[in-house]
């Protein structure tokens, strides 16, 4: 049983990528950090597609070498089948020199958690956080004390641990956000995901050709996404080839599932029926086999927290907000929030009298990114005052490389009209759109 001290500087809730990285960065700055993780790693997790930006967070954590040594599938770009048109983009055309990856999340998350341990983080697994007591967080000028109440999964005794700051990286459990009632839901976009794993699926490479599964480590794949024929362009499919299998999931509005699935139909049958409606996908699955009992589902809601930092706490990754995962931004967003939280917590310790300013700086950066995500993903995106301005500013402060990729991605799935409200660099947009290439595959 891992020893858990009675006090430390920072408690990190959750051992996913955001939690492990925030803990690592803080430990490297010399703080005493305890990370509480509910499960025992390596553990299963969906969400396997990563954008190339993630490398710099591994660099900062000293985890790059292990990441390379693991030999994950390198991904070259994306292929998008939307409204009858199939387009592809290659990260290389946007000036990215390091690869994106398709990762088995049990391994990826485990590497980052072990790296945190090596950096000096006290990691305790199979520990659930029950509540966080913020009643003594100081008066804004002094650092107060936060009490984290937890329970080891093996027993029923609640114990507590005092710290100065909590970094909540508990994912969709959103421990602090739920407790403080911070989450705001996008009522217009209630969706669910149903996914499974296939063996021996073919895939699309960056040149728009179909490749057999056995080529995956030699010829980099693209992440393939497709609109589903019904669902008005808001229902879509992901196809992410991994080393031994392919993750294949559907993201669909819950209302649409109610209309299309009868009580007698199993989720697996419903899932396969939807997959069968996509001719290109069927071609990729010609020699593939569904892994038995691999179909899972989760009801997801788009939400964000109206506050992502406050006296004694910072919210990271999915605990701060979760939107449609269509552009694979989730993990990189979580990693950015980890870096920003560690940076701000360090500054709070060193300049107690400016804690409120550091919390606000963190909030602006996180909220602006969530707003960008909402504008890209939500069907009924409405400009909403302050957050909208933050989103615009985040786009303007991103360099040309990131902006171009966002323009190209938003145009691929016809959600760019939303996005026009946030960004209007027409020259950059035109240049980005020229980098889209058609995929021509005979589907007869």
């Amino acid at each position, binding site marked *: 049983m891992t020893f858990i001290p009675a006090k430390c500087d920072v408690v990190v809730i959750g051992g996913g990528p955001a939690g492990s990285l925030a803990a690592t960065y803080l430990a490297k700055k010399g703080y005493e950090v305890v990370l509480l993780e509910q499960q025992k790693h390596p553990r299963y997790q969906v969400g396997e597609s990563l954008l190339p930006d993630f490398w*710099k967070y591994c660099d*900062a954590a000293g985890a790059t070498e292990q990441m390379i040594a693991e030999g994950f599938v390198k991904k070259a770009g994306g292929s998008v089948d939307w409204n009858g048109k199939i387009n592809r983009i290659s990260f290389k055309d946007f000036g990215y020199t390091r690869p994106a990856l398709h990762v088995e999340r049990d391994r990826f998350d485990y590497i980052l958690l072990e790296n945190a341990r090596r950096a000096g983080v006290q990691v305790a697994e199979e520990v659930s956080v029950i509540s966080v007591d913020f009643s003594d967080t100081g008066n804004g000028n002094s650092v107060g004390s936060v009490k984290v109440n937890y329970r080891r999964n093996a027993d029923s005794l609640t114990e507590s641990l005092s710290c100065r700051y909590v970094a909540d990286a508990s994912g969709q459990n959103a421990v602090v956000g739920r407790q403080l009632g911070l989450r705001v839901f996008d009522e217009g976009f209630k969706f669910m995901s149903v996914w499974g794993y296939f063996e021996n699926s073919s895939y699309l490479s960056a040149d728009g050709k179909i490749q057999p599964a056995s080529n995956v480590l030699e010829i980099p794949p693209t992440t393939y996404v497709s609109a589903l024929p019904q669902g008005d362009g808001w229902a879509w499919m992901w196809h992410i080839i991994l080393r031994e299998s392919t993750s294949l999931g559907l993201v669909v509005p819950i209302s649409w599932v109610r209309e299309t699935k009868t009580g007698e139909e199993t989720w697996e049958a419903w899932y396969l029926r939807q997959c069968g409606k996509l001719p290109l996908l069927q071609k990729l699955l010609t020699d593939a086999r569904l892994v038995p009992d691999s179909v899972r589902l989760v009801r997801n809601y788009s939400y964000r927290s109206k506050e992502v930092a406050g006296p004694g706490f910072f919210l990271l990754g999915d605990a701060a907000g979760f939107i449609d995962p269509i552009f694979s931004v989730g993990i990189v967003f979580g990693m*950015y929030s980890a*870096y*920003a939280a560690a*940076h701000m917590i360090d*500054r709070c310790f060193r300049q107690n009298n*400016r804690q409120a*300013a550091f919390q*606000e*700086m963190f*909030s*602006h*950066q996180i909220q602006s990114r969530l707003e960008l995500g909402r504008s890209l993903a939500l069907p009924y995106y409405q400009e909403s005052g302050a957050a909208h301005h933050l989103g615009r*500013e985040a786009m*303007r*402060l*991103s*360099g*040309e*490389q990131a902006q171009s990729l966002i323009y190209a991605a938003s145009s691929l799935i016809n959600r760019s009209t939303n996005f026009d409200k946030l960004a209007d660099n027409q020259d950059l947009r035109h240049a980005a759109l020229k980098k889209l290439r058609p995929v021509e595959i005979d589907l007869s």
Partner: protein
Amino acid sequence: MKFTDQETLAPLISYLENEASARQISIDITPETDILNAGVIDSLGLLNLIAFLEETFQIDIDAADVLLENFETPNALRNLIKGKLSDE
């Protein structure tokens, strides 16, 4: 504390040159270099740059100051610093 324009620009440019070389970007940093589009300052670099400005020039930068107009070039940063110092 008072800084002449040159006293403000010199440490800024030297900081940005270090950032560029850490990112393996070969670029001449002039007072008018677009440091965001050139990739010298990315989202992580922005946080570190803010901390650098605050420590070097003994100023407080607020969340509302983080605008393109203030961070696009070394000259823009110099104006931000100048404004902050004259507010004191």
